[in-house]
């Protein structure tokens, strides 16, 4: 399965391993297995790991290790991937208040998709999503796949600042913005859940590989949850 892995230097101190060029659960599994193996048996000189849909970028100290040396070591790791046990995925429920000021793009998404706002909410909350990886900013989980009927393009002009907790969709992905950041995904709702808390064990509500569902809640429930 991993014979087809492709290596590509990204900078003078980083190397990317690609498991295919498509988003599949198989390539996701390989990314997780390699990440897990590298966490269990760190390679001296490797400083950071950036997992994504079907690739893993390794940042390393080029004064200790060359690209070729790292690739050779990684090929040995790849040969052992099938033996890597992954932890059982956790199931995470994220309460969301959809529409209104919390989901300013809900109506537009409905129009683009040719369905009602209620159907958008129903579809978004109908699926169990896989957390493919965390990226962009601390605790931002890339969740997929969104039902085909909801696939929409990003905003032509990203917002300068998206309120924390905003639930966005883009292409076949969905996710929750943990912090006030710029963002180009269409916003359909907001969660009262703090997605990233430095004082909590694990810090991020969602970890790579978790199974995530969104539960619609009323505005009153949102407020109650926010205060609890």
């Amino acid at each position, binding site marked *: 399965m991993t014979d087809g892995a492709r290596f*590509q*230097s*990204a*900078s*003078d*101190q*980083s190397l*990317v391993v690609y498991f295919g*060029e*498509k*988003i599949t659960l198989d390539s996701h599994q390989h990314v997780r297995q390699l*990440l897990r193996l590298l*966490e269990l048996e760190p390679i001296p000189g490797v*400083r*950071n*790991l*950036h*997992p*994504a*849909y*079907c*690739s*893993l*970028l390794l*940042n390393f100290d*080029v*004064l200790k290790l*060359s*690209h070729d040396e790292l690739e050779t070591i990684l090929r040995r790791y790849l040969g052992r991937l099938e033996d890597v046990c992954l932890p059982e995925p956790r199931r995470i429920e994220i309460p969301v208040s959809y529409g209104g000021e919390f989901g300013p793009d809900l109506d537009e998404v409905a129009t683009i998709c040719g369905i009602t706002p209620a159907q958008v909410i129903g579809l978004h909350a109908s699926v169990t999503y896989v957390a493919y*990886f*965390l*990226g*962009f*900013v*601390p*605790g*931002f989980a*890339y969740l997929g796949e969104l039902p085909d009927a909801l696939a929409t393009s990003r905003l032509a002009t990203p917002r300068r600042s998206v309120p924390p907790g905003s639930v966005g969709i883009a292409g076949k992905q969905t996710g929750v913005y*943990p*912090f006030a*950041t710029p963002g180009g995904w269409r916003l359909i709702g907001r969660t009262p859940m703090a997605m*990233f808390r*430095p004082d909590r064990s694990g*810090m*991020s509500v969602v970890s*790579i590989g978790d199974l995530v569902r969104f539960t619609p809640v009323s505005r009153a429930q949102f407020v109650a949850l926010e205060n609890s």
Partner: protein
Amino acid sequence: MSVIQVQSPGLLTTVQDLGREGFGPLGISPSGAADPISLRLGNRLVANAEGAAGLEMTLLGGTFSFPDGLILALTGSDFGATLDGSVVDPWTSIEVRTGQTLRVGPARSGARCYLCVHGGIAVKPFLGSASTHILSGLGGFEGRALRKGDVLHIGSVSGTFRKRTIAPQARDRLAPRQTLRVTPGPQSNWFSESSLRSFYSGIYRVGEQSNRMGLRLEGAPVTQSSGGEMITEGVSLGAVQVTHAGLPIILFVEQQTTGGYPKIANVISADIHCVGQLRPRDEIRFEQVTLETARSLLVEQEELMASAELILE
């Protein structure tokens, strides 16, 4: 424990060290000093470990008072600092007496000035580092830029003051360049020959909206030839990504950890500190080098940083 009182914070002053590596899987980028060479040199001047926390000032410095006196050094860009009205030489350690006030002015060139104090700035580390990640409000002093009235604690100190200065020849060799050397990016073959030529021959202007996350560049747009479907992937420090509009963005110390734009090039490690001294409207160019050259330049730089001739006592 001695303290620094912030009388005015300047434009954007944060606590920074050399960043927190290893938390990419959580989406956390290293952050840390935008010009790590200057922070390391400042720490050397005040007899700290190279990675101790200091203050990073941006474009306009702050005013600080020291009720207990201490040893400090200013490095990076010259912000025209004075201590009780007398000019402070940058790149040199000085002893500050009880009650003196340091005024750091506007940048005369470059973008960032570092204030390092003997003992280092003591803040509660987040994931092993004192550096501030402004966007997420994590690390540093309360996760934010300094404000008037803040009081910063200094770590423990030992030994007596010795005046130290960075050798002028070493400073020249480490001076920020406006031609950034780059290696090819992972998607450089997505760009046509003519796009690559225009990228490497063009002059780019640093945009006003640039910050520690990234520097937006203005200039001749770089067009992609193969409109390949980009799948979001990990990105490295100094990656030059090209937006759909063809404008390059250099991902910097507070970078997003993954991204969905193709990368045409990547600034070499030995030139990252130069990016930290770029300010809006500066004009830069890119020069392509091989991975081998990038490595030798880094080896050379680290040899200089470790050499006996670096610091004059």
